[in-house]
């Protein structure tokens, strides 16, 4: 984790944040040091950085997905059914594909450019024969709070293994094992991680468990139910939303806000998909007035990756986002 600097855009103090925790993976691809990279996207980190860096296309994403998807005996959370490779259809037609526009995703602080882009693509899809419909997902705004609690609890738990005994930083503290743990962990973690661990442990205390953790799980169910309703009752095939509320923030703007608020701000659109456990993809559409990429997000029901990627490819082929620009600037 940490902040990744963008390359060659602005002056020394004005560089842009390239995105969330999985930024390293994407940047490595952009600069050419790796062919492909995987990042874990718990809150939108991979989708957002994709926006900021603007690398890869739907074909690449499909290829990687086909390579890694399917049952894994050593991962108990994978579905134990045979995975059929996704085929992208060159002649895919958007005719009669139902596209949902969730109105709650239009929120305060969203930049005009984003909204315009959103409307533009919605109209584009309609012109290609899709049935575009407005839908409601009332629990969207709960997502950030739910995510905060669950994420911090998992961080507190997953980071418990970093004691410096088997691997990692181990300080020279030798007064007692407890002191060694405290010293290694204080020095080895930065303040964001330490803050999340404290918060997570607080939520997991037995006196707080029901109030926070259980409540968060219940609200997560409601968020997931929002999607279920939209996909089943309203019969939507894909949802179209912005990916972020604005283009890539400047470093000085980013650090002026508390990390929690930053996340709340930037993750608003991408978070709910994680809560519902559904596939989502972010596609660069155009450049902002600051010449930074603006993307939109598509979301589909669980296991409907084929539909999702075909729609994404269709949009991509129609838009023809100027990728060549990135290479020139290096």
């Amino acid at each position, binding site marked *: 984790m940490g902040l990744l600097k963008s390359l060659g855009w602005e002056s020394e103090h004005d560089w842009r944040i390239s995105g969330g925790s999985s930024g390293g993976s994407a940047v490595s691809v952009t600069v050419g040091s790796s062919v492909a990279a995987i990042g874990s996207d718990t809150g939108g980190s991979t989708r957002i950085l994709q926006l900021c860096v603007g690398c890869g296309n739907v074909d690449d994403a499909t290829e990687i997905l086909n390579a890694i998807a399917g049952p894994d005996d050593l991962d108990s959370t994978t579905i134990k059914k045979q995975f059929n490779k996704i085929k992208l259809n060159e002649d895919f037609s958007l005719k009669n594909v139902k596209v949902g526009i969730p109105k709650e995703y239009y929120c305060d602080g969203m930049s005009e450019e984003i909204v315009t882009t959103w409307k533009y693509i919605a109209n584009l899809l309609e012109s290609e024969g899709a049935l575009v419909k407005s839908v409601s997902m009332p629990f969207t705004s709960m997502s950030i709070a739910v995510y905060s609690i669950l994420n911090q609890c998992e961080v507190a738990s997953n980071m418990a293994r970093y*004691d410096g*005994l*088997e691997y990692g930083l181990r300080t020279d503290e*030798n007064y007692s094992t407890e002191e060694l743990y405290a010293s290694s962990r204080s020095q080895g973690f930065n303040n964001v991680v330490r803050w999340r661990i404290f918060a997570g442990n607080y939520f997991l*205390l037995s006196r707080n468990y029901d109030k926070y953790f259980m409540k968060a799980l219940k609200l997560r169910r409601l968020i997931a139910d929002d999607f279920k309703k939209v996909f089943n009752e309203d019969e939507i095939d894909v949802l179209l939303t912005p990916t972020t509320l604005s283009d890539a923030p400047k470093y000085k703007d980013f650090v002026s806000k508390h990390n929690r608020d930053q996340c709340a701000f930037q993750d608003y659109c991408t978070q709910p998909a994680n809560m519902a456990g559904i596939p989502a993809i972010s596609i660069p559409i155009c450049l902002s007035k600051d010449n930074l990429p603006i993307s939109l997000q598509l979301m589909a029901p669980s296991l409907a990756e084929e539909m999702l990627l075909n729609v994404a490819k269709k949009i991509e082929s129609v838009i023809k986002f100027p990728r060549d620009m990135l290479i020139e600037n290096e």
Partner: protein
Amino acid sequence: MKRHCSAQSREKWRSVVGLEVHAQLNSESKLFSGSPNRFGGLVNNYVSLFDAAIPGTLPVLNRRCVELGILTALALSCKINEVSMFDRKHYFYADLPAGYQITQQRAPLANDGIINFQVFTPGIHKKPYKRSSKIKQIQLEQDSGKSLHDSELKQSLVDLNRAGVPLIELVFEPDLEDGEEAAALVKELVLIVQRLGVCSGRMEEGALRVDANVSIHRPGEPLGTRTEIKNIGSVRGVAGAIRHEIERQHDILKCGGCIVNETRAWDAVARRTVAMRDKEQVQDYRYMPEPNLPPLRVNLMTEKDMPDVISVPRLHGTLPELPEQTRQKLMQKYELRPDSVIQLVSEPTLLKYFNNIILVNYRNPNKLVNFLLNELVTALNKNKIDIEDCALKDSQIGEIVDMLAKKKIDLEGAGQLLDVLLLKPDVELTDIIKEQHLSLVIDEEEITRKCIEVIRNNPKLVKQYKDGKIKVFKALLGILAKDTQHRLDMSVVSKKLEDLLKRVLVQTLYEKRNRLHLVARRGEARKWRTCAVGTHVCRPGAFGEAIKVVQLYSIADPTNPSSGGLF
């Protein structure tokens, strides 16, 4: 200063004991990883990346462990839950690499069972009595590694071989009363898990570990504060630790003190419990669902087994006969006594001998049981051989039992036979008997001769016997046995001796003018021509002179009047 409570004041308190048992499962590999599940290997050699909590590793549930857990739960009449879940229990300790243990706190594998057992400790209980303890839940969980603290070098050493080893935890309700009941429960549980093949039950290796929760209260009042005792390493340790703790709590409360809710360790050498420093603060384990494991589902309805869903009914069909069932069968089929059966079933080696030997030659079950429990066990103990390591063949023991039945040797001789056989199992029985003159003498004439010899040589004892001191009979038998090096069939001898003693006449004679006359007599009167001199006593009396009073005995043989003689 140790205070002794009077029995009266002790009766006013009731003690309450609840057990928690951790048993290591007998699977090939660990609960969530593929590293070997083995005891006693080179340190840190059975550790996979997952066991060392290397980032990026995930748990995969071991199917065999679930089967073993289900078998145990079924044997203890538990309700198996169709869906159970895994949780993380967080605490920091050097032997817990991940900083949490994966367990099943919220939704365990099984609930609401019961264990039935008999309580009988020879020497403490006069006869066995039945008891049961309810089981609150059975759950699967990981074991931690082992840490050794070297206070001299101020170092802690961590061995992760045991980290991730599969455990089942059995939580019992606090429905026992004392250490003996707890020990009996543990003994029964060990037998059950051994029968099922679920766990080796070896407490000394840490395969089965018992923690005891102990409290005392006055009848009618609510339960007292409990303490938890850990580090108990044997079945007898369970009894000793709990007994000590009850006494300790009683002593404190009697003096007006309070019991602190704490964890104490059992020190088997000093035979007392000590407070454990580390566990003074109450821990909040911050339980959280394990996100990397889906819920565990089992099939409660059909016998269809699938790769990821185990059929409980199918497993139920594979349950072997349990110890209590074996006891009932033995008592019914062979009419054995409850305490014999309890002791027999509690030693699988002896039970095996019994079951094999009883089938041949119409051997007497009671005699066989007694031989195994008494003679064989005594011989093994004397020669410092563990019962499980007894190298004797079924045929050898069977032969000895047959010889005892035919009175070719007696119990003493059998003991000697066993001593030799245990050291040299390949020697022929007949050879040993010949060499050590173990054959029993059953010739009646010889027996009679020997009896008479003993009677002659021990006039004082015979007189005591005839005066009414029946206990002396044993002494006479003992002398007889010793003199004859135990070669006589003592049951026959006993009868013979009794018979002969009945016919002994105690007569007191006096010597007058070199002639002995009868003074007092029982039975027929005899005039004796010869005499042997005994003690002298002055008897004032009719004849007016000091006379020697001689106490003599004779054996009168009604068929042969002259067979008696003075001696």
